[in-house]
C-alpha cells in the first residue's frame, strides 16, 4: 500500500470520527439553545453537568465550541486526506487543543461536579480516538518510509 493511500485512509477515518462528534455537539448545542434538559436514560447526572456553570464559557455553550472544534478537525482531516500537507499540521494542533480541553472537562466532572454526562464521555472517547490517530500517524508514516 502506498504512503498516500495510508494517509488517505488515516485522515478519512479521522474525518468520519470528527463528523460523529460534530453531530453530537450540534445536538447538544440545539438542546442548550432551546432551553431543554438533555436526557441520559433517566440519569440525573446530565442535568448536573450540562446545567452547571462549567457548561458555558462567556455565555457560549461548551457544546457549541465543541461543534466548532469538530468541524475544524473534520475540515483539516478532509483536506489532509486529499493530500494537503499543511492541513495535517493544523489537524494535529486542533486535536491536541481538543484533547487538553477534554482533560479539563473530565477533571471538572470528576472532582468539581461529581457527576458524569454520558454525552460528554462519548465525546471524550471520540477525542481520545482522534488523539490516538494523531499519535499513531507519524509511526505509520515512518513505517511506510
Amino acid at each position, binding site marked *: 500500500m502506498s504512503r498516500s493511500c495510508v494517509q488517505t485512509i488515516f485522515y478519512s477515518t479521522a474525518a468520519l470520527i470528527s*463528523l460523529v462528534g*460534530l*453531530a453530537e455537539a*450540534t*445536538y447538544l*448545542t*440545539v*438542546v*442548550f*439553545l*432551546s*432551553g*431543554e*434538559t438533555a436526557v441520559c436514560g*433517566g*440519569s*440525573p447526572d446530565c*442535568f*448536573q*453537568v*450540562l*446545567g*452547571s*456553570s462549567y*457548561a458555558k464559557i462567556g455565555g457560549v455553550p461548551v457544546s457549541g465550541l465543541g*461543534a466548532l472544534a469538530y*468541524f475544524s478537525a*473534520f*475540515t483539516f482531516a*478532509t*483536506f489532509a*486526506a*486529499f493530500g*494537503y500537507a499543511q492541513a495535517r499540521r493544523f489537524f494535529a494542533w486542533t486535536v491536541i487543543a481538543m484533547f487538553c480541553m477534554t482533560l479539563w472537562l473530565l477533571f471538572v466532572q470528576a472532582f468539581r461536579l461529581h*457527576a458524569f454526562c454520558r454525552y460528554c464521555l462519548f465525546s471524550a472517547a471520540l477525542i481520545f480516538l482522534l488523539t490516538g490517530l494523531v499519535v499513531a500517524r507519524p509511526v505509520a508514516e515512518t513505517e511506510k518510509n
Partner: protein
Amino acid sequence: MRRYLPFIIVIGVALLAVGSGIFFYRAKRSANPTPKISKADTAPSGESIHALGPKDAPVTLEEFGDFQCPPCGKLSEPINQLQKKYNLRVIFRQFPLPMHANAKEAAFASEAAARQGRFWQMHDVLYREQAVWSKSTDARALFNAYAGMLQLDLGRFRKDMDSTEVQRQVETDQQRGADIGVKTTPTIFLNDEVVPPKQINPDELPAMVEAAMKKAKPSS
C-alpha cells in the same frame, strides 16, 4: 474536479450541520413553546400569584399543585393545552404535600425561578423531569442544574431558594389552600367552583372547562 472535492465536502457538511441544527431547533421550539406570559402578578394583599392568560378571561382555572405528585405531572401538559385553546386564566398555587420528600424544595425552586421571571418555565421543567428528581437524594443539585438550563442567575437562584420570602410565599399558598379546604393535590377550581376529584384527569377536565366556558358565556 478532485482539486475542488475537499472544498465541496467541507461546505456540504457545514451546510448540513447548520441546516439540521436549525431544523432540529425549530422542531424543539414548536414542541415546547415558551409560555407567553410568565411574570408573577401581585395580588392586593402583596402575595405573588403565578398566572397565565388574561385577567379578564371568562374562565379561571386555579390549581393547588405539588411538583412531586404524579397526577399533577400528568395534568400539567393538558392544562397548558387547555389554557391555549380556551385562553383561560390559569393560576398555580403551591401545595407541597409532607409525604413527598422533595416537594417543598421543588416549590422553593419554582418560587426562586419566579423571582427571575421564569416561574412557568421552571414549572414545566419540574413536571417534565419529575421522575428524575423525585428519586434523587440530592434534588437541589438537579434544581440548580435546571436553573442553569433556564439561564437563570445561579447565585441569585441559590440565595432565593433559601430566603425566608420564598419560604413564606409557599406557606402563604399552603395556608390559603388549607383555609378553603384543600387537602390533596391536584385540587382544581374553575371560576371558584371546585372540580370533583374524580373528574380531575386529562380525559374529563376538558369537558369540565368546556362546560365552565358555556356557563360563563351562555350566549355563544
